[in-house]
Structure formats: C-alpha cells, structure tokens
C-alpha cells in the first residue's frame, strides 16, 4: 500500500488516465460511460475506485487526474473521501485533484451542508465542481468538462499546465470563499 504519486511513471503516448473515487458505484459508472462517449483526441482511460489506497498488485498507467465524488445525500461518501485523501502524495494537489459534489439539486435530501464541501476543497486548494450526476444532460456536460480538465492535466494541451489551470480556476471561486 503505497501512496499514489503523480509523475512517478512515464506517460503513455497520447493516453490520459483519470481516477474516479467515490462510494456510489452506479454514479461513477455512469459518469465513466459519459466521459468515454465524449469527443476527445487523446485516448482515455477511466479507473474507478471506492477508496484509496489502491491495491499495488495491479499494473496501472500513470494517473493524471483524480476526481473525488462526494454525494451530498450521504455522510458516508464524505467520510470515505476524507479518509482516502490521506493516502495521496502532496504533489497531487498541485492541480491534479478535483472534487465533484453531486446531489445538490434535491435540497431536502442533503445531509451534508454545501459549505462543508466548500471548506474541504478550500483546505486542499483544489477546484470544486457541482453537478447532479443523476440527470443525463448535466452528466454529459460535466463529463465534457472533466475530459478537458484531464487533457490539460495529462499535458496534452501545449501552453497550459495543471498548476496554471489551478490558478485560473481559483479566480472564479474566490467570491464564494468570503462567505466562510
């Protein structure tokens, strides 16, 4: 059980790998399918996991982007994500980690407050995305967005690096952080 490190393996040619971590298997599977259907010039590999650490026995390619999916309806998903975060190498948080919060649409079912996730993303200095993964269109749009994010993190877009993107995305988030 070793901590995941970015850049410890060489990248595959024209290949980008994303790791989706979350407790809701069905949602992750659906998101993975949407991502694979999305238009992309590079080869995409999507790995799904319930939690970190990942078993070392599997031979896997270099992971370019990790997305932690938190379901606002269940406290368990938040807990499992928080536990998994400890097994990640610090270098990952330079733009290769993103948080995705789903289920914000049905406010009555939400047991986790929106601010909790916002604070979590702020502590780890990573971008936070909101999406209702159960709705087809939103899922497709979010999949498209994640594909673009992944391409940049894998280094397929010349001139933009993951860190660059991180500071670009931070600009639009700042107004909401003042509420905290």
């Amino acid at each position, binding site marked *: 059980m070793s901590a995941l490190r970015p*850049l410890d393996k060489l990248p595959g*040619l*024209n290949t980008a790998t994303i790791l989706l971590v979350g407790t809701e298997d069905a949602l992750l599977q659906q998101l993975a399918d949407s991502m694979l259907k999305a238009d992309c*010039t590079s080869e*995409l*590999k999507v790995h799904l996991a319930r939690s970190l650490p990942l078993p070392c026995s599997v031979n896997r390619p270099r992971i370019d982007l990790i997305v932690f999916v938190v379901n606002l309806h269940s406290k368990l998903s938040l807990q499992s994500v928080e536990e998994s975060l400890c097994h990640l190498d610090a270098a990952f948080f330079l733009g290769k980690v993103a948080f995705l919060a789903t289920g914000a649409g049905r406010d009555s079912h939400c047991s986790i407050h929106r601010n909790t996730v916002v604070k979590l993303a702020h502590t780890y*200095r990573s971008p936070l995305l909101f999406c209702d993964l159960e709705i087809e269109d939103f899922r497709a749009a979010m999949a498209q967005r994640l594909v673009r994010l992944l391409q940049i993190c894998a280094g397929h877009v010349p001139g933009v690096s993951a*860190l660059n993107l991180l500071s670009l995305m931070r600009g639009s988030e700042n107004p909401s952080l003042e509420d905290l």
Partner: protein
Amino acid sequence: METQSEEQAVTKPADSGGEGGPSQVAGAQAARPEDRMTLLLRLRAQTKQQLLEYKSMVDANEEKTPEQIMQEKQIEAKIEELENEVEEAKTAFEMKKLALDRMQLSTALKKHLEKVDIKTSVLMDNMKQILNLNKLIMKSQQETWDLEEKLLDVRKKRLQLKQASERKLLEIQTEKNKQKDDLDSMENSDKIKAIQQNLETEIQITTVIQHVFQNLILGSKVNWAEDPALKETVLQLEKNLTMI
C-alpha cells in the same frame, strides 16, 4: 484496517475522424499524409509539454522545503504568499509576451508598409477610417462636455434661487412672529386696560339709565304696547349692553 478497494478500468480508443490511434497509423496505408502530419505534430506538442512538466518537477524538488512544524494559520499564510508569487509570475510573463507580440507586430507592419503602395492599400483605408472616427469621437466628447457645463450652470442657478426663496420665507416668518408678539404685548399693556375699564363703567351707567327709563315708563302706567314708537323704545331698552 485498510480495506482493499476494488478497482475497475475502462478504456476507449480515440475516435476523431480520420486520425486513428498511433498503433493504427503505423499499419494503415489509407491514412492521408496530412492527417499523419497533424497527428505527429500534435504528439510532438504533447511530448514537449510533458517534458516541460517533468523538468519543472525536477527543479521544484531540488528546492528544500522547510520541515519544521508550523501552525495551521502560518501554513495558510505561507500558501497564500506562494500562490500570490505564482500569480505575479504569470502576470509578468503575460506582460512580456504582450510586449514581444507588439514588437513583432510593429516590425511586420513596417516591412509590409515598405513593400506595399501606400495610396491603394487597404491598411491605409482602415487607418483613415480610424482617424475619422477618432475625430468624431473627440467632437462628440467636446459637445458632451459643453452640455454638462450648461447643466451644471443651470443647477447652480437653481440652487441659488432656492436659497434666496428660503431666506425670504424666513424673513416672512420672523415678521409674522414679531407682529404676533406685538399684538400680544399690546393686549397686556396698560392703555388697553384703562380703556377697558372706562368701557365697563360706561356700560354700567348706560344699563342703570336703561333700567331707570324702563321703570319710569312702567311706573307711569302707560299702555306702551299701543304706541309703536314707544313699544320700540321699551323693547330696545331691554337690550343687554354687555353683549355688544
């Protein structure tokens, strides 16, 4: 303690129109040369970017990070400092790129102008149009400025008039108050009291005279109801003088 997490992997080959995956290009004879070139250029750009990333990581790792244990607030402050440095580096870079682009543009423009006949060039037409528009803009701005000045003058005058009317109203008010005070003081003055006293005395005397006349006529046992003039006199005597 730590649960072995399950992992699934899903893959998908690239699906852009004429381009195939790298393994397919090698074998496919049908792939057109342009597409192969595009693919190769794209892969080159990719590899360059990835190389840049690895290089920067190597450079970053050479820098020693302080290992001391800091308070969370200090860490936050440090992180913000570093983020600001990143932002500043980015802005500086963007500025330099902008300056460089401008210089390149101006040299290209210069070379273009040297080559081209000045009278007929589209560029000249554009420049003339730009100059005309600038003149119009300046004229409109001047007009706007003049109108604003006029507006300001009118407003000033209005304010002055308002202040003048305020003063006048204040004067009227003070005058009225003075009059009221005078009236009040007059009422309490001694002259009025004396006059009032005289008036009262006269009224009393007249009332007594009235009563005397009444009693005289009644005492004389004359039938005053028959004579209209006498009747009028008697009734008039009945008038209470204090009510006048």
